[in-house]
């Protein structure tokens, strides 16, 4: 066990210090492709939280049984199994949620962030720590997606969560896929700049 952080520390790390979208730059495909609206971001984020928690839990439980040479196939199988099960259960018992989230759940099989958390954390640490790490990373991803979705929906279609706030469409460009790269890039730069400024202040104080 190498983890030195407390449970809340693990949560905060996923959301702020190592935010998967803005800091680790993982799972950029969905961040660029899907984040055209805030609602899409929320749906994908919630779906990721579920899959990440279940997969981390499974891997943390069976970590001693996994042969090191086939750990990646095992992670992929674990994620695929959970995605399928969640997809089936949602479709059968929560049809209204499934109508909105269905396509996002299926996308998750190929997410780098989940495999990465299994490799970096769940396969080495205790079960309870893994769950908090998964929750933190999931929420961090959700926050990132919502932030990008907010900018793109506001500037692209003048709306927030489907409510018309501007009354006109400033730039259609923002909902096209290429704008995803610009928005993600600028936001990444912005958050890193804030962190740099903050660090500098802390250093000056000490």
């Amino acid at each position, binding site marked *: 066990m190498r983890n030195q952080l407390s449970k809340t520390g693990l949560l905060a790390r996923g959301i702020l210090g190592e935010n998967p979208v803005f800091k680790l730059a993982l799972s950029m495909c969905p961040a660029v492709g*899907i984040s055209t609206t805030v609602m899409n971001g929320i749906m994908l984020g919630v779906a990721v939280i579920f899959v990440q928690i279940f997969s981390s839990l499974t891997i943390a439980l069976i970590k001693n*049984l996994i*042969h090191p*040479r086939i750990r990646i196939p*095992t992670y992929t199988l674990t994620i695929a*199994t959970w995605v399928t*099960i969640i997809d*089936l259960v949602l*479709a059968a018992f929560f049809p209204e949620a499934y109508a909105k989230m269905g396509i996002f759940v299926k996308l998750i099989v190929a997410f780098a962030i989940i495999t990465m958390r299994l490799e970096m954390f769940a396969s080495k640490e205790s079960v309870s720590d893994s769950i908090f790490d998964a929750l933190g990373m999931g929420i961090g991803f959700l926050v990132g997606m919502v932030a990008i979705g907010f900018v793109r929906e506001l500037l692209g279609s003048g709306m927030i969560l489907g409510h018309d706030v501007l009354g006109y469409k400033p730039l259609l460009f923002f909902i*096209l896929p290429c704008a995803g790269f610009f928005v993600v890039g600028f936001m990444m730069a912005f958050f890193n700049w804030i962190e740099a400024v903050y660090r500098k202040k802390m250093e000056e104080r000490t």
Partner: protein
Amino acid sequence: MSLPIKDILNITLRLTITCLVAGFLMGVSFIFTNDAKKQNAYNNEERVSYSLLGYSGDAKKPENLKIHNVYRYVIEDDAVQYIAYLLPSAENEFTLLRISLEGEFVDQKTLQLSPAQSIDAPERERAITSALAPKHVALRYAENIRIVTLDNKLNAYIVNGAYPGFKTHINMMLALSKDYDILGLEILEHEEDPGLGAEIEQDYFRGQFVGLGYERLQELDVARKPIPDEYVKALEKKLADDEAQNVLAKHRNDDIYALTGATVSSRAVCNGVKVIVKRFAFRIQILNKVLQNQKIKTTFSEASSEL
């Protein structure tokens, strides 16, 4: 670096076990969820059907409003093709009606199917194959037509169809009056771009089709100009009733206004609606002629004289 054979066997064994466990878990959850999933899909289609007829949310549907499900198949029998209709004839009973491609009656058979079985595609096909046994035929499912009756009088048709969109097919559902005027349009499934082509789902786009007559529809075109604001407001039901009626009447003869940045998707829906309605009108007239001439009993017999 080569692995000793013992390690290779060890890895193979572990991978196999992992796959088996994963497969087992997925299989178990499939068994537990499959029936509910099918029922949901059916309920959803039924809900969409009712909402197309104007019975959604607070608007309660009348008690004598019934939907009769008719399934159309293409049957290939020794290189001869037939059109087959599976028509509800009584409770737990369906009539399998075969019509030649020229529209002539071939034969009819009665088969037993409960309502729960009839919404399940494999169950239906099993029943049809066994009704036609011992002759072996190739069966291809074509579509599901819903005939809506109110107090045993023909009220509307509900038709499904697909048409190629920007990326893949756009699946839509249409409610038609008995004269094939459009009562409602719903986009069921599509993969158009979010924010652009996906706007075909919006009320202000779909609403432009409602009320179009059969003749008008055939010459309908897509206009590449911005849609007037008042028209959008009326279609989104943001205007007072009588004002909305005026605005809608004013734009009644307009072409379909293309969505900004999504002319291809707009045109696909427009052409799709045209094609679906035209084909349906053609088929239902043939079916009705056969039903009348052969005096075939169905649950909507009383209404079928008006078909």
